[in-house]
């Protein structure tokens, strides 16, 4: 169901999307995206540069957030923009939860603006200062 100009109100919340991100998934993202930086796939290297271990790509976290927006909005073509700050790393085995809340509805333009973000089950704010816009149907 696509969201419409009439149905979306300020304060509406995106259906939260939670996903436990495994090393297998991070490695699959590395391969598919081409971002094979060893901090994502090589435990020893990650520790050597001061990380607790391998970390998920910030772009993978952003992709899961964008999926949450797509599902809520009724399709990925509805997502007009997304921006985030990569504040804290997500570690393999962590569960990320992506959220969003409508802060403005421009009925004339058919655009809803949302504050968006993501946290981990370790209580870390993974994606912060997030903003997104979604296209609404008539």
């Amino acid at each position, binding site marked *: 169901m696509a969201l419409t100009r009439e149905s979306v109100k300020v304060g509406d919340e995106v259906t939260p999307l939670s996903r436990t*991100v495994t090393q297998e998934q991070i490695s699959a993202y590395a*391969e598919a995206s081409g971002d094979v930086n060893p901090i994502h796939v090589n435990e020893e290297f990650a520790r050597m540069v001061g990380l607790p271990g391998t970390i998920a790509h910030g772009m*993978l976290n952003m992709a899961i957030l964008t999926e949450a927006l797509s599902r809520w909005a009724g399709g*990925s073509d509805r997502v007009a923009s997304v921006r*985030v*700050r990569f504040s804290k790393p997500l570690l393999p085995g962590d569960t990320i939860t992506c959220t969003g809340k409508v802060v403005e509805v421009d009925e004339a333009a058919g655009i809803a603006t949302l504050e968006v973000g993501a946290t981990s089950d370790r209580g870390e704010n993974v994606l912060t200062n997030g903003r997104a816009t979604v296209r609404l149907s008539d």
Partner: protein
Amino acid sequence: MPDESHVGRRYSAKGQQVEGDRAERFAQAIAGGDPVAEPGAVPPTYAAVYLMFPALGQIFGDAEVGLNLAGLIHGEQGFEFHRPVKAGDVVDSEAEIVSVESKRGMTFVGVDMRATGSDGEPVCSGHALLISR
């Protein structure tokens, strides 16, 4: 190290092809163990592949800018999706260094990027903030 003299540098990565197989693997990687959200559709953040990495890769390789990759952090990322891409699309990607700022012993590099379709229409715009320590 990047400095203000590098603001305005432009980079071009023309002819980025959206490969269906790869976009599918990308969608599966996002889904992890869950079902793919929209089978057959190219996820919006696939812009990382056809726009962001080709553009940033050129900046990383610019010896005169001299970014230290070992201490580099992807601080922020934004995308505006002007229209969806599909398998087989070819886009021209470009980037420009729009800001370089040093503070607290770190260098913040802002990069604007833009992908254009073969019809000349905008496909995706982006902004990256890179932090070099």
